[in-house]
């Protein structure tokens, strides 16, 4: 795997030349038929660098048709792979990393001074000489957005079936099962384990897997942060929506378990150095719902405490949770109608959204900040396993 194509060290200027008729083979071997595993142990985003070196040679020879053709075939090749692997997280993440890296290369080596501030003198020698590829950068940026959306869709599809049981039904706090609301003990089969039951550990395992894949593939750290913010938002929305519709989980004990689960997720973010992602902030409505379940709900002071605490929940959501709240035992009282009226009166000034449930399919807009690479083109080795021996190093 480590065998490299022979090259003359002193002559290599970081460009790759190929015959026009080999473009099909290049795209097949480097894009459509490539398995990300083949490149483990090599520089992350190697296909992007190879493609840039090919573009650079076509630019060097002022062959605009070759640049057009290569970029078009590359983009169509990537789209073809994504269509074929539309449920494959690893493949989608791999092409997101590479598409973004190619986009960064086209900026870093554009000759535009704004993108060259971190370049070494050697890297400046590797800039494009003849063509301005601004319009192709826009196409690659649009493609990156499409790939990001596919990646989120795949990740959400894997996480979603776990959320309700892991966040609301599974009991990991010892002794808590004895304090479930009356009449709801051993209520549903999903609470007793079985095929559709997951614990929080399953969610964390899955997120570990996503994180490891994206890091190994050299996906930009800023994009990884945005992926987890999006996924945490979805966990928040699905969990809160279920809480708002299910009496059996609106209890003190679920509030306690939920708060514990959220703290585990926060701990996971810290452990992976993802706390600046804004992921925890997206969980705020759920954090407040968990606290609402645990607060006292009797006196005027209790009502004031609830109103000052639950700023990320709408009045409608607070009232719904209070209405659904189920006492633990015969010693705990239901929330009284007058208490709910007190809350409503205190919150009447708020301009809340009208809908009760959160839009769990909502997507935050994604940003791809420019991330230049410190790598120099002439240091890149092409592994023999890529079967690209028809590329001549120039």
């Amino acid at each position, binding site marked *: 795997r480590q065998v490299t194509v022979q090259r003359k060290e002193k002559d290599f200027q970081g460009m790759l030349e190929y015959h026009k008729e080999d473009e099909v083979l290049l795209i097949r071997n480097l894009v459509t038929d490539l398995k990300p595993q083949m490149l483990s142990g090599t520089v992350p985003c190697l296909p992007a660098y190879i493609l840039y070196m090919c573009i650079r040679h076509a630019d060097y020879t002022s062959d*605009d048709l070759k640049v057009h053709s290569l970029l*078009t075939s590359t983009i169509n090749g990537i789209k073809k792979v994504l269509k074929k692997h539309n449920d494959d997280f690893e493949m989608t993440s791999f092409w997101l990393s590479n598409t973004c890296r190619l986009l960064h290369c086209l900026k870093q080596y554009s000759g535009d001074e704004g993108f060259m501030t971190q370049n070494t003198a050697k890297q400046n020698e590797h800039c494009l000489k003849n063509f301005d590829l601004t319009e192709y950068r826009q196409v690659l940026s649009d493609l990156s957005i499409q790939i990001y959306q596919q990646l989120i869709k795949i990740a959400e599809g894997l996480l979603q079936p776990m959320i309700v049981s892991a966040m609301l039904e599974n009991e990991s706090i010892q002794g808590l099962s004895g304090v479930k609301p009356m009449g709801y003990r051993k209520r549903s089969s999903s609470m007793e384990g079985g095929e559709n039951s997951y614990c929080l550990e399953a969610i964390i395992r899955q997120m570990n897997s996503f994180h490891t894949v994206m890091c190994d593939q050299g996906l930009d750290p800023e994009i990884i942060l945005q992926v987890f913010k999006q996924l945490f938002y979805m966990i928040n929305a699905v969990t809160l929506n279920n809480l708002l519709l299910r009496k059996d989980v609106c209890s003190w004990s679920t509030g306690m378990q939920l708060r514990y689960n959220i703290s585990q997720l926060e701990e996971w973010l810290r452990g992976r150095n993802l706390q600046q992602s804004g992921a925890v902030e997206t969980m705020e409505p759920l954090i407040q719902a968990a606290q609402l379940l645990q607060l006292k709900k009797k006196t005027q002071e209790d009502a004031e405490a609830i109103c000052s605490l639950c700023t990320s929940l709408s009045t409608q959501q607070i009232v719904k949770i209070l209405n659904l709240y189920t006492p633990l035992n015969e010693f705990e009282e239901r929330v009284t109608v007058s208490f709910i009226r007190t809350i409503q009166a205190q919150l009447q000034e708020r301009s809340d959204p009208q809908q009760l449930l959160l839009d769990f399919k909502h997507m935050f807009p994604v940003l791809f900040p420019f991330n230049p690479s410190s790598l120099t083109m002439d240091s890149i080795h092409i592994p023999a396993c890529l079967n690209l021996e028809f590329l001549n190093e120039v």
Partner: protein
Amino acid sequence: SSQRPRPRVLLKAPTLAEMEEMNTSEEEESP
């Protein structure tokens, strides 16, 4: 001066949707 870089020629690119359209019609044409 001779050090000043030559202006680069802007290569016009189709949009992503146009590219897809071209690609689809090419696929349809080929047997």
